[in-house]
């Protein structure tokens, strides 16, 4: 079955790159521009994996992860953090919020897809 990935990133460039890489790998791709938008998409559809940026306006990645984890429907949806941040404190904070994994940009599509396959059931 085709798996659906929700990508949350405020950069259009990043969203385009993600969509291209993921669609090529055979995933369905949903997109959101920030945490708030991401939660909105989650009202309508249930992705198999969420890939999110950290630094975003309105609601950042931490906020999104916390909100997703509080929703019983999404407690088990793996969330990968994809960001340029490589700061360890931030990584720890994301983990505490409930992130499943962390990938540092610029990403290599094959790595990202491998990571998604690793966490997706």
């Amino acid at each position, binding site marked *: 079955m085709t798996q659906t990935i929700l990508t949350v990133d405020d950069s259009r460039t990043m969203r385009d790159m993600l969509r291209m890489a993921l669609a090529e790998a055979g995933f369905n791709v949903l997109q959101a521009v920030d945490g708030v938008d991401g939660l909105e998409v989650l009202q309508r559809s249930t992705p198999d994996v969420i890939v999110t940026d950290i630094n975003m306006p309105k609601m950042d990645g931490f906020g999104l992860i916390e909100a997703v984890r509080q929703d019983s429907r999404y407690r088990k949806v793996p969330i990968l953090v994809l960001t340029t941040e490589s700061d*360890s404190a931030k990584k720890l904070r994301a983990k505490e919020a409930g992130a*499943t994994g*962390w990938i540092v940009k610029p990403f290599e599509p094959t790595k990202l897809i491998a990571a998604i396959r690793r966490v997706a059931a």
Partner: protein
Amino acid sequence: MAAIRQTFFQECEEQLSEMEMGLLAMDEGRTDSETVNAVFRAVHSIKGGAGAFKLTQLVQFAHTFETALDHVRSGKLAPAPEVMKIMLRAADVLADLVEASRDGREINEASYEAVATDVKGLTLVDGQEEVEEPIDFQPTVIDFGLPEISIEPTPEITEAPSHQYHINFTPHPELYANANETVLVLRELNRLGTMEAVCDASTLPSLEDIDPNGAYFSWSIRLTSEHDTADVREVFEFVEGEADLSIDSDGQAEVSDADVAALLAMALGNSPATEMVASETSTEANVAANQDAPEATPSEIQAAITPSAEAPKQDTKAAAAIPTQTTIRVEFDRVDRLINLVGELVINQAMLSQRVIEANFAGSSSVVIGLEELEQLTREIQESVMAIRAQPVKPLFQRMSRIVREVADATGKEVRLKTEGEATEVDKTVVERLAEPLTHMIRNAVDHGIESPEARAAAGKPAEGNVRLTAAHRSGRIVIEISDDGAGINRQKVRASAIKKGLIAADAQLSDSDIDNLLFLPGFSTASTISSISGRGVGMDVVKRSIQALGGRISISSRPGLGSTFSMSLPLTLAVLDGMAVSVAGQTLVVPLTAIVETLKPKKADIHALGAEGRVMSIRDTFVPLIDVGTELGFRNTATQPENSVAILVETGGGARNALLVDSIQDQRQVVIKSLEANYGTVAGIAAATILGDGRVALILDVDALVTGSFEDSLSGELRYGTGD
């Protein structure tokens, strides 16, 4: 990929503009976390995208800049004026680097090294550069738990011998809470070789005591694989810190995570009470990492284990926060097509109205009522479509702050640009075509207007000069003003220069305003030496022509010692025009409403002959030149009798008043402008054309050109524009 690249640079433009806006806000003291964050995010996004395109220079500079911004964000660096000055310069460099990257150029690093050094200097703590997070262009998957200990990739072993691993893996509840799954980890591990996993379920409580969110199993795994320890380690990458894990390879015992953590903490002089969980593959690697990785300093570890404790709390009020708008992107071609179509619709609707009138329907008939509704709707649609093309002048104004900085630097002046009304919207084409004249005027204001700090001090003014750039909507037009608090126009110097250049007679009687307007004469320049800033071969005459080509007017006012103000008034759109339809020799002409002061019915006594052909009309106590539109445009050979005509008093861009003599006034209407140049050619005195309700073409008068062609003397020679010369 090319498309994404294009998206990236488009986005960079937006980020740069966001960044500049935020920095200027910070410079004015608005340092709430929302504003600082927005700037940080903008630079951060540029860095992120640039990394994907391997734009090394851009990434490096953005990283340096971002680090400094992060210091501001975390409260380590106060956004003092001198700090903001460096930041604004960094913003300029970043913009240059983006531009260079877009054009595929490399910028000589020496050219911005000074700025880079200054920015780096901002993050120096006690003269020591703070340990920076390394930037790595290679995609790296970084693990959780351990702060910045780089994993040295194990050298490739050519023969790839088989390794034996013994792995003990005890998941914690957090592993499941974070949506990791043991079964997926095992599945992944199984891919590496032959695996034998034994599950220890001895801690599993009875059914009634089971916590559904608990973790009760531990696994003992034997793996035979050609992969090295790092690969095996990578399988557990996402679950590190969420499980007890030990990996023995080839009978070599591995220290448990807890032991390593304690050891590390001890070595760093910290209490082992931290929650750190080590992630290295072997004791040797750990020790090596400790020795070879200077970045693992105690302070950093401390920073890592007290996540963002010192970071200021988000300012929830964010009063000065700039709201983000929900937008969609549409190509301009599509909008223009829509505008064209609506233009046709307007014309079509006008034609329909005409037919209905000709058919003599009763005013109360449903056809007439329906038509009126259609007319109303058409107008609304037209306005809405025009609004799509409208853009705020903000990006344009933002570019000016950079110009001010550059010119101020080059001339050794201290100048602050204040902008107002950035949200004022005007047609996209107007915004675009304003850039050049505005840039020139801003340069002039700083270069010629503002005095040197010494001169200002001598005049009792603050050393820092002010340039104000404002935009506002005023009676259906946009008015943009540039004012400075400099020395004002040196009228004696201007006059002398004009006489020397033969532009005016030595004994010419000129009012102050006349002298000020000399600046707009072609080739006029008061600068004794052509400076590299203002003296670019472009004079104020060119500025004036560009403004007039946009259907705008420019005027100047100056007060000695107090400064000068240039004021421009421009139409909001170039697509429609409010005009007065008039009849001349059986033709319908349109006079732009903005040029009209009033309409008069002249009496014979009001008209006086002047010279052989000229006539003037007395209006109250003044005389204005009378222009017979019919003869001027060649519609007829003999002059009309003023008493049988209507005089329209018009004002030109230069402020001169003239009376246009036409046969009669039809009505006032909005017309869709059709370019005459694109469809026919340039005609003196005619600005454009439009299509009337009955399908005939009507010409739109170019009042300034008409007046110039007829009467203006050498003084107003600069007004000769758009007539093909």
